C-alpha cells in the first residue's frame, strides 16, 4: 500500500516537473517570438539608401502598433517582405497585433475598454455602437490637418468615403478609408448549360428581367446538365445574418437612398417608401420565382459558403458573384466536370432599360482609425499616403518586386509566393484600379474578359447617399426589435409565399410607427447636410 502511494506521488512529481520545464522553456522562447514584425528592419536601416524619396537625415524611426483582423492569422513570407519594404521606405517600424479574426469584435471592445490603445486600429463596422461611442469619447483622432499633406490619399479615395467618416456630425474626419472599388456585381452563369438549352446572353452581359427568368426557368426545367434527372435549379441564393430579401432588387429601383421623385421626403430609399410600390414588385418577383421552384429550395437555411459549394456541385446554375472569382470557381469545378464553362451576366435591366445598382454606400471596406496613443500621427498618415503612391501601390497591389513577382519584359509574372501575399493587400486601395481584383496569375484568356466585366460593374454602380450613416433612431430599442424580428420574419414569409405581398403595407406601417418615421427624418437631415 505504501509503495503504491510512493509510486503515485513520484509519477505525479515527474509529470509536474516535466511540465514545468516545458513551460519554462517556452516562456523564454516566447519573448523573442512575441513581435510580429521582423527585427531585421532595424539592421537594414542603419545603412539604407532610400529609393528616390526625399528623407531628412534627422528623421527618427517611428514605431507604431497596428491592430487589424488580417487573415490568415499567420504572416506569410511575402507579407513579411512587404512590411519590411514599407518600413524601409518610410523609416518606421510597425508592430502588428493580429487578433483572431473570428472574435475581432470582442477584441476591439476589450481594447477600447482596456484603455491601452494601439496607434492604428482597423475598424470593420463604422456604424457599430462601440465604435461610435469611442469616436464621441475622443479615442480616435480627427485627421483633417494631417490629410492636407496626403495627396495620394486624397486623389485615390472617393469623396463620399471622407464624408462617411465625419462620424460626429461636424467636419472632423475620423479615419483613413480602406477603399473598395464600388461595383454593382452581377452573376456567374453556367455557359455549358446555356448552350444546352439554347440561350445566349448579350456581349455586354446585360439582360432584361424576362430574359433572366427565361434562363433561370430553363436551368430548372430543361435538364441543362443532361443527366436525365430533374435535379437542377436556376438561381442560387443564400441567407446570411438573417437577411432574407428580394433576390433581384436593383432592377426594381431599390438602390439605396436617392433623391425622391414624389412623396413627403426629399430623399428616400424606395424600400421604405409608402408612395412607391417598387419594393413590393421586387418581393412579388422573387415570390413568383420561388413558387415556381426556380430558386434553390434550401435558400432560407443556406449560408453563403454553402451556396457557393452548391453552385460548384452543379445544383444551381446562376449565382450572384464577383466576376474576379471566376478562375477560382473553375479551379474547383473542372476536376469534377471538365465540360464546365462559365460566363457572366453583368446585370439585369430595370424598367428604363438600364442596369444600375449598388451594394454599399461608403466606398470603403472598413477604415483605419488613429488613436490618441499616436505621438506622431503625421508619420502614420505618410505611410498610408506612400502606399497609394506609384511605388507604394505597386507593392500593395502585387507585393514586393522580386519576392511575389518578377518582371519579364513588360509583364509581371507571379512567383510561388504570390498567392500568400494577403495582408499587404488588405490595407489600402486605389479607387480607380479595378486591376487590383484580377490576380496576376489569372489565365491569360480569362484576363481581358474579367477586366471587361469588372469594368462594366464599376460603371453601373450608383452610390447610395446615406454614406453609412446610422441615425440616432436606429438605437431606439423598439426600432431594433421590430427590424430584427418582425420585419425580417415577415419579409421571409412573404417571399416563400406564406403571406401575400400585400402584407408588406401593414409591415411598413408598423416600421414607421416603431421608429421608422424618425429614422427617415434623420436620414433626410443628414443627407441634406451632406449634399451641400
Amino acid at each position, binding site marked *: 500500500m505504501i509503495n503504491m502511494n510512493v509510486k503515485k506521488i513520484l509519477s*505525479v512529481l515527474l*509529470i*509536474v516537473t516535466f*511540465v514545468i520545464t*516545458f*513551460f519554462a522553456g*517556452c516562456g523564454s*522562447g*516566447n519573448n523573442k*517570438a*512575441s513581435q*510580429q514584425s521582423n527585427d531585421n528592419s532595424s539592421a537594414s536601416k542603419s545603412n539604407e539608401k532610400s529609393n528616390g524619396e526625399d528623407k531628412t537625415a534627422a528623421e527618427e524611426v517611428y514605431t507604431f502598433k497596428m491592430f487589424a*483582423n488580417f*487573415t*490568415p*492569422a*499567420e504572416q506569410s513570407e511575402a507579407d513579411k517582405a512587404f512590411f519590411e519594404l514599407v518600413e524601409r521606405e518610410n523609416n518606421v517600424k510597425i508592430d502588428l*497585433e*493580429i487578433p*483572431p*479574426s*473570428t*472574435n*475581432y469584435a*470582442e*477584441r476591439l*471592445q*476589450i481594447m477600447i475598454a*482596456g484603455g491601452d490603445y494601439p496607434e492604428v486600429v482597423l475598424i*470593420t*463596422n463604422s456604424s457599430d455602437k462601440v465604435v461610435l461611442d469611442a469616436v464621441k469619447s475622443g479615442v480616435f483622432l480627427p485627421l483633417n490637418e494631417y490629410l492636407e499633406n496626403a495627396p495620394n490619399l486624397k486623389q485615390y479615395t472617393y469623396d463620399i468615403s471622407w464624408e462617411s467618416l465625419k462620424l460626429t456630425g461636424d467636419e472632423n474626419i475620423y479615419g483613413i478609408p480602406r477603399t*473598395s*472599388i464600388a*461595383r454593382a*456585381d452581377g452573376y456567374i452563369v453556367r455557359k455549358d448549360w446555356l448552350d444546352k438549352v439554347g440561350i445566349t446572353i448579350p456581349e455586354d452581359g446585360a439582360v432584361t428581367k424576362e430574359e433572366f427568368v427565361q434562363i433561370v426557368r430553363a436551368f430548372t426545367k430543361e435538364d441543362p446538365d443532361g443527366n436525365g434527372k430533374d435535379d437542377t435549379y436556376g438561381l442560387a441564393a443564400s441567407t*446570411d*445574418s438573417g437577411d432574407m430579401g428580394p433576390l433581384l432588387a436593383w432592377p426594381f429601383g431599390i438602390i439605396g437612398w436617392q433623391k425622391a421623385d414624389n412623396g413627403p421626403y426629399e430623399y428616400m430609399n424606395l424600400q421604405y417608401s409608402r408612395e412607391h410600390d417598387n419594393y413590393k414588385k421586387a418581393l412579388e418577383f422573387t415570390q413568383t420565382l420561388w413558387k415556381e421552384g426556380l430558386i434553390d429550395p434550401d435558400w432560407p437555411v443556406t*449560408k*453563403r*459558403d454553402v451556396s*457557393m*459549394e452548391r453552385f*460548384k*456541385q452543379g445544383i444551381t446554375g446562376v449565382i450572384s*458573384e*464577383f466576376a*474576379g*472569382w471566376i478562375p*477560382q470557381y473553375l479551379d*474547383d469545378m473542372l*476536376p*469534377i466536370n471538365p465540360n464546365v464553362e462559365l460566363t457572366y451576366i453583368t446585370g439585369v435591366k430595370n424598367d428604363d432599360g438600364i442596369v444600375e445598382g449598388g*451594394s*454599399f454606400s461608403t466606398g470603403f*471596406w*472598413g477604415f483605419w482609425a488613429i488613436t490618441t496613443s499616436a505621438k506622431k500621427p503625421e508619420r502614420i498618415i505618410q505611410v498610408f499616403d506612400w502606399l497609394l503612391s506609384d511605388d507604394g501601390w505597386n507593392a500593395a497591389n502585387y507585393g514586393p518586386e522580386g519576392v511575389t513577382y518578377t518582371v519579364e519584359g513588360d509583364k509581371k509574372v507571379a512567383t510561388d509566393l504570390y*498567392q500568400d501575399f*494577403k495582408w499587404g*493587400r488588405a490595407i489600402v486601395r486605389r479607387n480607380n484600379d479595378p486591376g487590383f*481584383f484580377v490576380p496576376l496569375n489569372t489565365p491569360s484568356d480569362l484576363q481581358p474578359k474579367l477586366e471587361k466585366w469588372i469594368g462594366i460593374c464599376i460603371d453601373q454602380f450608383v452610390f447610395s447617399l446615406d454614406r453609412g450613416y446610422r441615425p440616432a433612431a436606429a438605437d431606439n430599442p423598439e426600432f431594433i426589435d421590430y427590424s430584427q424580428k418582425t420585419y425580417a420574419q415577415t419579409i421571409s414569409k412573404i417571399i416563400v409565399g406564406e403571406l401575400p405581398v400585400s402584407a408588406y403595407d401593414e409591415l411598413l406601417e408598423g416600421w414607421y410607427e416603431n421608429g421608422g418615421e424618425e429614422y427617415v427624418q434623420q436620414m433626410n437631415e443628414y443627407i441634406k447636410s451632406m449634399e451641400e
Partner: protein
Amino acid sequence: MVIKQSVKRHPSNSSLLSDILIYTILALIASCMLYPFLNVIAVSISDYSSYLENPTRILPGKINLGAFKYVFSSSLILSSYRNTIIITILGTLISVIVTILTAYPLSKKSLKGKSIIMNLLIFSMMFSGGIIPDFYLIRSLGLLDTLWALILPSVISSYNIILMKNFFTSIPESLEEAARIDGASDIYILWKIIVPLSTPIIATISLFVCVGYWNSYFSAVLYIRDQRKWTLQLLLREIILSANTQLLNAGGNFAELSSNNNPLQTVKYASLIVVILPILCVYPFLQKYFVKGIMMGAVKG
C-alpha cells in the same frame, strides 16, 4: 476490509434474450453516433472534388492528404499543440486537486459555514461579471498574455464540486468513524480512505476538466496577444471560421475576400480530426478507474 470478486453470473434463457436485445439496441444507437465521425474522417482524407461529388460520404474518395498537410504546415500548429497540452495537464491536475479539497469538507453534513459556501458556489454558477471585468482582473493580476490566464479562472467549477461532494456523501460514515477512532486526522482520512474509494468520480471529473481545458479557446481570444501562445482550438477555429466571419464583415462586397482564404471543406474536417483524436485517447486510460467492486465489502471490515 475484504474485497470480494463479484460472483460470476450464469446466463439463463431469458437473460440471453434480453442480452441480445440490449446488445442490438446499443449497436443501433452506436451506429447513429458513429456516422458523422466516419463522414468527417472520410472527407478529410479525400480530395475536394470527391467531397463536392458526395458530401455525405463515409468512404473516402480519391485519397488526398493535402488537407492534413495544410493544417500541419501552419507555423503555429506545434506551438498551439504544446500550449494546449500544457494547460490541459496543469489545469487538470490543479483543478482536480482543488475540487477534491473543496468538495470533501462540504460533504460533511454539519460543518459550520457550509451553507454559506454552498450559496456562494451556486450563485457564482448562475451569475458572472462578463468579459470586461474578467479582462480587467486578469490584467491587474499581471496574467495577461500568459498561459496561467487560461488555467486559473477555470480551476473552480461549482458544478464539478457539487458532483464530487455528492459522491463523497454516499461513502458510509462508519469508515471515517473507524479511522477517527484510530486517531487519524482529516487530511489522512481524505487521502488514504476517501480518495481511493472515489476513483470513479475523480476519473469522471478529471475527464470533464481535461476536455474542458482541451477545448478552451475563448479565454485565449481575450487574454492572449502573442500568437505563439494560441491554443489549438483557437488556431483551428481561425482556420475553419475565419472565412465565414470575413463573409459577414464584407457586407455584400464579395471581392473583398481573397478567394484563397476560404479553406476547403476538407481542411475544415481535417482540423476537426486534429483536435479530437488526442482527447479521444485519454478516455480509455481512465476507463480502468470505472471498476466495480471497490466499495463492497469495505464496510464489512
